[in-house]
Structures are given as C-alpha cells and as structure tokens.
C-alpha cells in the first residue's frame, strides 16, 4: 500500500468481479488513444500481408473477408487506465491467417497505416489469443477505433491491438515498436501492470 492521501475515499470499489487489473478503472465509454491523425484507407486498396514466411502472403479486402471469422466477447484494458468489459468483436483469428504461412519465427511486428508499429511474441498471437477485427458491436469498425481492421490482442494493454493494421512482419529478433520505443513497456501485461519501461 502506498502513501495514504488524506481525505481521499474513492468511489470505484464497485468491481469485485476480479476482472479489473491493478490500477485500472471501469468505463462504459470507448475512449480513443492514438498519436496522430486517423488514416482513412479505401477498401479497394486495402491489403493485409504477412511477411517472414517462405514467401509473403497477401489478402485483398474481399479475400480477407472471405476467410472464416469469429465473434468474440472480451474485456479490454488501455494503458491510460480505462478498462471496458464484454466488448463484442468480429474478426479473423490470427491462427486462421497463419495457416496460410509457412513460418517458424518467434516475434511479430504489426504495422499500420500511418506508420504505427507494435511488437509481440508470436505465441501471444496464436492459440485463440488474437484476431484481425473488422467489426465492433455488430457494426463495421469506425476509423477512429482502427477501422477498417485492427489487431485485437485483449490479454495485453490495448496499444498492442494496433489500429489500422495492414500486416504482420515475422522476425527472429524482437523489435520494439512505436510506443515501446517511446517509454512504454515492451510486453504490456495488464495483470502485472507492465505500463512503462522499468515495470
């Protein structure tokens, strides 16, 4: 326990579900965090690419949407302290995408329109842990929330769920991404409160 702040009582004790990681508060809003303007990629020029296998594999929007998709309900946790429970998404599992790729790499760099990147171990993207999501709450994903498609990796802080994602580059050596080189934790586990460098 830290220094007691005189007169602070707080009002957030309502959550006893065990689903709220340390330092987080629950919100019903869907706040937005991004470092620059929102890109607007036309779907007829949108592609999704996985590099790092024996050869790059690329899907157009129509090809991507023809892949089997899943609907999932997940709790999400942003490093700026908000968490949101039971968010509904539809997307293509990264497992489904990787079935088309002959690879044995340990790390991935997700890259996005606008130049954003984020890095993750491949094992955090597989076995039903990650999706390329194209719908939220039954509607096409808004551009400000990452549409047309974003990565969804709900078990890590939400900056790992790259908005406007356009591909994965699979690599042997870990390569810190945008926030990871700007002071934020390399892995980002909310349950271990891995927010910043040194956590």
């Amino acid at each position: 326990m830290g220094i007691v702040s005189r007169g602070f009582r707080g009002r957030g004790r309502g959550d006893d579900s065990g689903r709220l990681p340390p330092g987080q508060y629950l919100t019903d809003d869907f706040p937005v965090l991004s470092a620059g303007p929102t890109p607007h990629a036309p779907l007829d020029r949108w592609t999704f690419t996985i590099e790092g296998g024996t050869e790059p594999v690329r899907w157009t929007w129509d090809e991507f949407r023809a892949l089997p998709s899943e609907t999932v309900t997940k709790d999400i946790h942003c490093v700026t302290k908000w968490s949101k429970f039971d968010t509904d998404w539809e997307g293509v599992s990264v497992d489904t995408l990787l079935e088309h790729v002959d690879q044995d790499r340990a790390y991935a760099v997700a890259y996005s329109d606008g130049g954003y990147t984020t890095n993750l171990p491949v094992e955090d993207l597989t076995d039903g842990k990650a999706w390329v999501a194209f719908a939220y709450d039954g509607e096409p994903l808004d551009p400000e929330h990452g549409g047309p498609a974003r990565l969804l990796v709900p078990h890590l802080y939400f900056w790992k769920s790259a908005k406007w994602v356009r591909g994965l580059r699979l690599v042997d050596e870990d390569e810190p991404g945008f926030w990871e080189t700007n002071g934020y934790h390399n892995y980002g586990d909310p349950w271990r409160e891995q927010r910043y460098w040194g956590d």
Partner: protein
Amino acid sequence: MTETPSVRTLVLNIPDWPGHRAGQHVDVRLTAEDGYQAERSYSIGSAPGMPLALTVELLKDGEVSPYLVEEVVPGDRFELRGPIGGYFVWDADGSDEPIFLVAGGSGVVPLMSMLRHRRAVGSNVPAKLLYSSRTLADVIYRTELDEIGAEVIQTLTREQPPGWKGYGRRVDAEMLGEVQFPPEQNPRVFVCGPTRFVEAVADALVGLGHRPGRIRTERFGGA
C-alpha cells in the same frame, strides 16, 4: 492556484524529480485509508527545469480530479510516477521549424509547457497557439497567454463577451487555414484536447496538406 472555476494548478515539491520534457505527463496514484487506490494521468504544464506543475480539470463524474481540484491542500501527499511519454514532446533543440499548437479546453496544458519552455530558453522558433474554450471564464492561463511571446489566437465556442476580437465558433478547416503556418513551411503540429476535437482538427489539417507524420496528437477521453 485556481485557473478557472473548474481548473486548478498544483505545484508539487518532489524530491529527486529527474526533470521532464515539454509535453510529457505523469500518473497520479491516490490511496484511501482502506488501501483502495485510483490512478489517472495528468499533463505537466510547467516548463522543463521549473517546479513541477500539474493543471487539472474537474470532471463531474471523475474520481481523482475532484480530489485534486477540490480537496487537496498544501502539505498533502500523494504518489506520482513519471515523467511519461516520448512522442508528444517538443524540445528547444536548435531546429528552426515553426510549431503550430492547437488546443481544445484543458488540452492547452502540455502545449503551455512547450510555450513556457520556448520562452524560458529564448527560442526564436516561430510559434502559434490556436486555443478553443467554451467561454472567456473557461480560458486557462488567461493572463499569462498575453505575455507568452507567441501568437495566441483564441476562439470561444459558446459565448463571446462584448467586443470579443477572436473567433466565435468551433475550430474548423477555414479557421485552421487562416491561422496555420502553411505546410510549405513544414511546421511541427501538436493537437491536444477531447477526442472529438482532436479527430476533427487532425482530419482538417491533413486536408489542408499537412503530412500526417508532422501532426502529433494527444486525446483526452473517458472519465
């Protein structure tokens, strides 16, 4: 120090504070007597090298801001982590690229840190601040803005006093076009405010020809 009816600046005495860069923020953690904790992030308003000042806006449904704005008195203690953030920052690093700052409401706080930094080091970098508030009473740093040494253009979206010389509407593409450093001058652009404000301003700036990579944004969202 009271800035407006709902905004207060706290000047903090922090042993071993490592210093900060203009535009960075800190995390504040409050602990109740029963051990319950709440954390939020707040932008730093002071210039690097000056005593650390946080300017906090009271959010009606907030948990930490009511404590910081209405409860805390000199001598109280709370935990603070930082400085945080290495992207939404401006250093007087010798570059002569103009800076164009666009603020909505309390989004002015990290931008004020940049202007104070620029003034403190005697930088000649051309600088403009376009600052949107609801009413004159909501303008944070009102008197200091007159002597900040940069061009400050204000708009009041809800109510304008008699004789008001600034703009009287929400920031739009036309206003940005009149006020901006044109893209040919390759300005660095910083936009901070509520999500809707930042989305609209950043989209309009891209429409005016600013390269997306030159526009850095910080959004306030949620409770």
